[in-house]
């Protein structure tokens, strides 16, 4: 019964993070902000939800931890690839952005 309550708390935390991630995806002004808010938050939300399921059913905990590890390995790679592809394909930064380190790095490399 205690495991059930702790698992429910983890599930609710995960649900809130998934909701906030998609809200950020909808509300943020440009691609880089959207990617930065949503991919990190949704990774945390997914891991928290899956850990909650594993705590509710202790027999499933090993497989749940395996799924969590794979999500932890693969999601940052896809976010990194999207960000780089967006910059290379010429998407402009939001007009309120204050710095552009990757552009400076590319300029340094070209000189």
């Amino acid at each position, binding site marked *: 019964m205690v495991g059930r309550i702790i698992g429910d708390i983890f599930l609710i935390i995960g649900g809130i993070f998934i909701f906030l991630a998609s809200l950020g995806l909808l509300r943020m002004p440009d691609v880089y902000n959207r990617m930065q808010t949503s991919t990190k938050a949704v990774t945390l939300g997914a891991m928290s939800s899956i850990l909650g399921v594993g705590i509710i059913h202790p027999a499933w905990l090993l497989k749940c931890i395996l799924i969590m590890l794979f999500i932890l*390995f*693969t999601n*940052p*790679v896809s976010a*990194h*690839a999207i960000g*780089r592809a967006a910059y*290379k394909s010429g998407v402009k930064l939001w007009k309120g952005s204050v710095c552009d380190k990757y552009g400076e790095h590319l300029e340094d490399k070209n000189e």
Partner: protein
Amino acid sequence: MIRRLIALLVSLYLGYILYSFVYVHFPFGERPLRGVAAHYVENGIKEEGATNIVTSIVTLYRGFDTLGEVTVLFLAATGLGLILAGMKREEEEKPEPTLIMETVTKHLFPLVLLFGSYIFIHGHLTPGGGFPAGVVIATGYFMMFIAQRSFTPSEYLLSATESFAGTLYVIVGLLGLALAFSFLDNVMPLGIPNRVFSAGIIPVIYIIIGFKVGSEMTGILLHLKEA
């Protein structure tokens, strides 16, 4: 424009059908079975020894169909190879994959191969089987194609694996014809259900199908990449 409008109306109508289907049939899987489905569910484990009845239907009750499906897949791969045979991509300047992609995919690739093997070895116990396992392995190779600087599997080895697996499948079928009454009959001992070594020839056939589908799909992707 009129074509798009018709397509929109058709998709809305299909959506309406989906909605009504969900409402009418709602507690899914609760209705009593009839006919041959009831026979499979009642006697499947006793007759063929596989816990996952779908696999015993696919490989034994309807085994000849599966051989035909594998042949169709082989013909598709051969046809694609013939179409793309003359084309050669001109060398062009391409941006290289980053260090992050290369490192992660390099360490993930053996795990994907292991996972595909898990799916086809446990095909008679858990969902899955030869076809999804082959596709998982091919997706692992595709991951390496897009995220590694230079990764090219040997085309000769791929086609050799595929031909060898196809021949083995037919040989297993002929073994059933020789030792029992019919082509692709279950000639090995059934064992105890829920063990890995059980269900007769189902794991053998699924291992063969896994290798065959995996090498075929990888061959298709390799042809498309290099043409």
